[in-house]
C-alpha cells in the first residue's frame, strides 16, 4: 500500500501541469500514474507545430511542449509510475493500479486529479457497413504508427472526418509519399481549425467534401475502396449520389470521447453533454477531493487551454490537502441556454473565500457571426459580451465579477440572436 497527498491519473499535458502546480502550491507527496512507457501523452505523437503559442509565446511541436513540462519535473520529488494502468478508483480516493514494473498496487490519496484524456471514436462507434478488412485506422492510431513507430498504414488514403487529427494526418501521409484522395466530412462545416484546412489540405491540393460520408467499405482481406455519398440535412445518405473511390486505407477522424470509466466507477456526477465530470470553478467533481482537468473533462482544441485548466485543478487539489476544514459547498448551477452547448464549470461553489472574478468557459452550438452572449443571474442580465464570431470549434472564455453573482440562485449563459 502506498500513501500520497495527491495522486494524478494520467501523465499527459493535463497531468503534468497539474502536478507541477500542486507542487508549487505546497503539496508534499505527488504521484503521477501513466499507462504509457513515457510521460507526455498524446503530445509525443503530435509532431506538427502550433503548440504553445499562448503558454510559451512561441510555436512548438507536441513533443517539445511535453518536454518543457517533463524537464521541470526533475528535482521536484514528484513520483512517476509509467507502464502502470489505474484500474479502479473508489470515492474514498483509493486507487488500484497494475504496473509492468511494480505489479499490483493500492494507492491511498488525500486528493485525486483525473487527467486521463480522451480516446478516438472508432468504426464501431459510427457503424459503417461492409466487411472487416485490414486498412481501417483511427487517424490518431495512424499518427502514432507513422510518427513514432515507423510504419506506413497505406498508400492510397481516404479520410472520413475533418477534425484536426484527420487534417494533420492528411498532410503527414502526403509528406510521407501516400496519396490522400479525399477528406469527407458529414457536416456542412469542419470541426477542425481553419489554419489546418489551409495548411494541411489546400497546400497539398487535397479535396475536402462537406456533407459527404462513407457509406460502405469494400474489400475482404484489405480495404479496396470506399463508397462515399452526399447526405441530406438529417445526415442521411442521398440515393444516387454514391461514388466509389479505390483506396487501400480509410482513416477515421470522427470525434473524441473523454475516457471516464474510472470517474463513473467512483460515482462522480457526469455532464451528458461533455461526457466528462460536472465540476465547480476549482475543477472539483461531485466527490470532495477528486478533481478533473484536460480532455477527460471536456475535449479541448488547444493544449494551452489544457495546461491552464490543469493549473486550476492542481492548485485547488493542493489547497484541499493543506486545509483541514472544508466548508459545506453552496453550489449554484450554470445553465447553458439558447445557443450555448455547455459550460465548464457546470456549477459555481460560492461557499468560502472567492476571487474577485471567475472564468467561465463555454462552447456554442452553431457559428454566430456576430455573436452576442448574455449572462444572467436569476433572470437579470449581468453581463453582455459581443464578439465578431463564435464557432463550435473554438472554446470561449468569459469573466464574471463574483460580486454580481454572489447572491444568485441560478446563473445562465445564452446567445442572443441578432
Amino acid at each position, binding site marked *: 500500500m502506498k500513501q500520497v497527498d495527491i495522486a494524478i491519473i494520467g501523465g499527459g499535458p493535463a497531468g503534468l501541469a497539474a502536478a507541477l502546480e500542486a507542487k508549487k502550491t505546497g503539496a508534499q507527496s505527488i504521484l503521477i500514474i501513466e499507462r504509457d512507457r513515457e510521460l507526455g501523452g498524446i503530445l509525443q505523437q503530435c509532431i506538427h507545430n502550433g503548440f504553445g503559442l499562448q503558454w510559451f509565446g512561441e510555436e512548438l511541436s507536441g513533443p517539445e511542449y511535453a518536454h518543457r513540462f517533463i524537464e521541470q519535473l526533475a528535482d521536484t520529488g514528484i513520483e512517476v509510475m509509467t507502464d502502470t494502468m489505474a484500474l479502479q478508483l473508489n470515492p474514498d480516493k483509493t486507487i488500484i493500479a497494475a504496473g509492468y514494473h511494480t505489479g499490483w498496487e493500492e494507492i491511498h490519496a488525500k486528493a485525486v486529479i483525473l487527467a486521463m484524456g480522451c480516446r478516438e471514436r472508432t468504426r464501431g462507434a459510427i457503424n459503417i457497413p461492409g466487411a472487416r478488412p485490414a486498412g481501417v485506422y483511427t487517424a490518431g492510431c495512424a499518427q502514432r504508427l507513422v510518427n513514432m513507430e515507423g510504419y506506413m498504414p497505406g498508400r492510397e488514403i481516404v479520410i472520413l472526418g475533418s477534425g484536426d487529427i484527420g487534417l494533420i494526418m492528411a498532410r503527414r501521409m502526403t509528406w510521407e509519399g501516400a496519396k490522400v484522395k479525399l477528406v469527407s466530412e458529414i457536416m456542412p462545416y469542419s470541426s477542425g481549425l481553419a489554419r489546418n484546412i489551409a495548411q494541411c489540405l489546400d497546400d497539398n491540393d487535397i479535396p475536402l467534401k462537406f456533407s459527404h460520408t462513407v457509406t460502405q467499405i469494400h474489400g475482404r482481406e484489405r480495404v479496396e475502396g470506399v463508397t462515399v455519398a452526399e447526405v441530406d440535412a438529417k445526415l442521411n445518405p442521398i440515393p444516387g449520389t454514391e461514388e466509389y473511390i479505390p483506396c487501400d486505407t480509410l482513416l477515421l477522424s470522427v470525434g473524441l470521447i473523454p475516457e471516464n470509466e474510472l470517474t463513473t466507477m467512483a460515482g462522480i456526477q457526469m455532464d451528458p453533454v461533455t461526457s466528462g465530470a460536472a465540476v465547480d470553478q476549482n475543477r472539483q467533481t461531485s466527490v470532495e477531493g477528486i478533481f478533473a482537468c484536460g480532455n477527460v473533462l471536456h475535449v479541448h482544441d488547444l493544449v494551452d487551454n489544457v495546461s491552464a485548466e490543469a493549473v486550476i485543478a492542481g492548485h485547488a487539489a493542493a489547497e484541499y490537502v493543506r486545509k483541514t476544514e472544508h466548508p459545506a459547498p453552496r453550489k449554484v448551477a450554470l445553465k447553458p441556454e439558447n445557443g450555448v452547448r455547455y459550460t465548464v464549470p457546470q456549477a459555481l461553489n460560492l461557499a468560502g473565500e472567492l476571487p474577485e472574478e471567475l472564468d467561465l468557459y463555454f462552447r456554442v452550438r452553431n457559428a454566430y457571426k456576430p455573436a452576442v452572449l448574455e449572462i444572467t443571474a436569476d433572470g437579470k442580465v449581468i453581463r453582455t459580451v459581443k464578439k465578431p*464570431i463564435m464557432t463550435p470549434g473554438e472554446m470561449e472564455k468569459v469573466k464574471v465579477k463574483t460580486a454580481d453573482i454572489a447572491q444568485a440562485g441560478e446563473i445562465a449563459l445564452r446567445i442572443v440572436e441578432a
Partner: protein
Amino acid sequence: MIEKDMVCIVCPVGCRLHVVKDGEQITVSGNTCKRGERYAVGEFTDPQRTVTSSVYVEGGHMPLASVRTEKTISKAKIPAVLEALKTVRPVAPVKVGDVVLPNAAGTGVNVIATREIRRK
C-alpha cells in the same frame, strides 16, 4: 495581373480575402484588420511553413525521433527538405534541439530534433 481568393487564418474570424497582384503592387481586400493584409501579402509573395517529420535513429530506445525545421522555410522548398530527410539517421542519444540536418536542402535553415531518444 494575378488574382487569388484565400481565407485568412490569423484568427478565428476567417475573413475571405481577395488578393490582386498587378506588377509589384499587391492589393488585399476583404480583410478586417492589418494582420490579414500582412498574412495575404506573405502568402502571395513567399509563403512560409515549418516542416515537421520523424527520422529513424540508430541504436535508440525508440525507432524514430521527431524533427522540425528550426525556422520557417519557403513552401516551395518543402519537397526538397522532405527528400533530404529520408537519408538522415542520427545516432542515439538524441537531445531536443540537436541539429540532425544542417542547412536543409540549401535553405539555410537547420532541422532539429524535437524529442529525446536515449541509447537502447
